[in-house]
């Protein structure tokens, strides 16, 4: 369930563009106006606004936002304004660069998007970076991480609900064997996670628990310091219970001393139109504090206001 709220009567495109233009005029920027407009339009509307703005004023709205805004507020607005496939391509590309590299972000994008969303992200990647996502992932990750991430970003999973119980049993057994031998980077193990449909993986993990007693992720906690294992566990979570994965990312981001704005921005902008409502409910359940209250306590200024707008917060 999305948290984004769009007014019941939306101003016309030209009105929105005019207002945005006004927000940029003069000294300083009217951030409140930007939040009010962009923070309450869905992907289709934002796309049309960008088009109309470019036609009316001859410049890319994103470039203007880049000039006018700064810091965390700028990042949240820019990421939000991008089309979801472009946004995913941008985040993925960032995750392959040396100083901002993140195996976790690559896995998150590959595993929490639908098969077609991942595809669109790969197409947007071609257009924007003149390379394929697979090339960059292949060449900027190494060892076991590459072994896992490359198939994950290349996958085009079947999306049906059909489940083969015999297969679930045999693959649960395979996984249990590999895990008990600490063969975490085994080809067959990775193959299951990287190629099977999400429904099939769910069935396999249920069977794993029934047959062997523990959640598979529990058995993958053999070494809490091992980063590859941590990525493997996160992969499983993303494929089977993404809201719990995102809740954890948010919790860690907010609890971290000083706050991890990067993660907070990423989760809010990428899930506001998808399932941030469910993630927020999970957050409240787990932390006994509503998500927007936690965001309010931990962030401030226009950055906070934008996050709250996207999280569906209604001013009392």
């Amino acid at each position, binding site marked *: 369930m999305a948290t984004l709220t769009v007014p019941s009567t939306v101003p016309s495109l030209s009105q929105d563009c005019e207002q945005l233009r006004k927000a940029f005029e003069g000294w300083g920027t009217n951030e409140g106006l930007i939040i009010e407009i962009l923070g309450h339009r869905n992907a289709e509307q934002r796309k049309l606004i960008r088009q109309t703005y470019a036609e009316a004023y001859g410049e890319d709205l994103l470039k203007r936002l880049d000039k006018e805004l700064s810091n965390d507020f700028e990042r949240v607005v820019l990421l939000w304004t991008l089309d979801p496939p472009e946004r995913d391509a941008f985040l993925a590309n960032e995750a392959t660069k040396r100083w901002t590299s993140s195996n976790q972000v690559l896995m998150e994008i590959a595993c929490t998007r639908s098969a077609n969303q991942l595809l669109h992200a790969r197409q947007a990647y071609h257009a924007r970076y003149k390379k*394929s*996502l*697979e090339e960059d992932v292949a060449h900027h990750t190494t060892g076991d991480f590459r072994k896992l991430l490359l198939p994950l970003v290349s996958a*085009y999973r*079947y*999306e049906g609900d059909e489940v083969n119980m015999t297969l679930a049993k045999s693959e649960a057994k395979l996984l249990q064997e590999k895990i008990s031998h600490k063969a975490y980077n085994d080809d067959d193990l990775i193959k299951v996670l990287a190629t099977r*449909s999400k429904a099939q993986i769910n069935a396999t993990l249920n069977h794993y628990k029934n047959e062997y007693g523990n959640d598979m992720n529990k058995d993958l906690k053999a070494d809490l310091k091992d980063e590859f294992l941590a990525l493997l566990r996160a992969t499983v979570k993303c494929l089977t219970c993404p809201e719990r994965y995102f809740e954890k990312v948010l919790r860690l981001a907010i609890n971290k001393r000083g706050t991890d704005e990067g993660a907070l921005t990423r989760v809010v902008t990428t899930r506001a139109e998808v399932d941030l409502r469910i993630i927020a409910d999970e957050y409240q359940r787990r932390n006994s504090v509503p998500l927007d209250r936690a965001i309010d306590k931990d962030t401030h200024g226009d950055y906070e206001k934008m996050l709250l707008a996207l999280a569906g917060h209604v001013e009392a």
Partner: protein
Amino acid sequence: MAYPDHLEALNKAFSGIGVDENSLISIVANSNHEHKKSFRKGCSKLFIEDQNGFERMDQSIIKNLKLEFKRFRDAVVLSLLHPWERDARLIEKAMKKGQKHYDVIVEIACTRSSNELLGARKAYHSLFHHSVEEHLATHVKGCERKLLVALVSAYRYEGPKVNEDVVKSEAEILSNAIKNADKRKPIEDEDTIMILATRSKPHLKAVYEHYNKICDKSLTEDLEAEGILKDTVECLCTPETYFTRILDAGLSVDGDEESKRAVTRVIVTQREALVKEGYAPNKIQGILTGHYKDFILGSLAREEMNKPL
């Protein structure tokens, strides 16, 4: 009555690739009992004298005839299918048939455009209710698995931009992988697979050229012993060579069944490219026969392509 002409014509109708349906109609359809008996006695290639007093058709001939009659049908169906469905079905069949047919999977994964391959993957979902990657990863058990899964999962960038430095270093990497073939099979080498499965085709063509410069032989020559890895490089870097080789093998007198099937596949799927390059149907005239021949020749007819319907 002696029917030597008819006998010869009958033999001819059954030789070559495809069958001469028209001859068969005119000869066999209105043959009476006596005629047919004389065919059977006269055609030692097709019939053998059985100990129980009748002329028995050779079992392998029955099987072969089935295949030859089917050729026209297969060509038509393959031609009619949406390219995505066609490629998805070809991949699935090749996968089921086993290791000797993996080159077909390589051919499709490497000679289609990024969007065509993508389309095939989508069609695969609809037809087989699984992703092609899962099936490959499950059915291919040998050393080819990593390469095949990686190749079908590719969504290559299609622009012309190529980074010369990367080209040079990757040609070196391939060269080293080949030099170390006795320690580790190149087809299982992670870097080799990565280069071949993720880089754009213009990039790979540049790597191919550069390899030729730094080593005495070409990349395909040095991969001669490496099975589908060689096919991969050929399909990605020199597809014309690959297709010519396949067609020559299939159109030769002693081609096996798979090579002959490949002719249908290549002509139907590469039709436009073949016509553009003026692929000469001379070989086809002599070796193919019947409706199958007409269909194949028709597919390659240049004028037909531009005629408005």
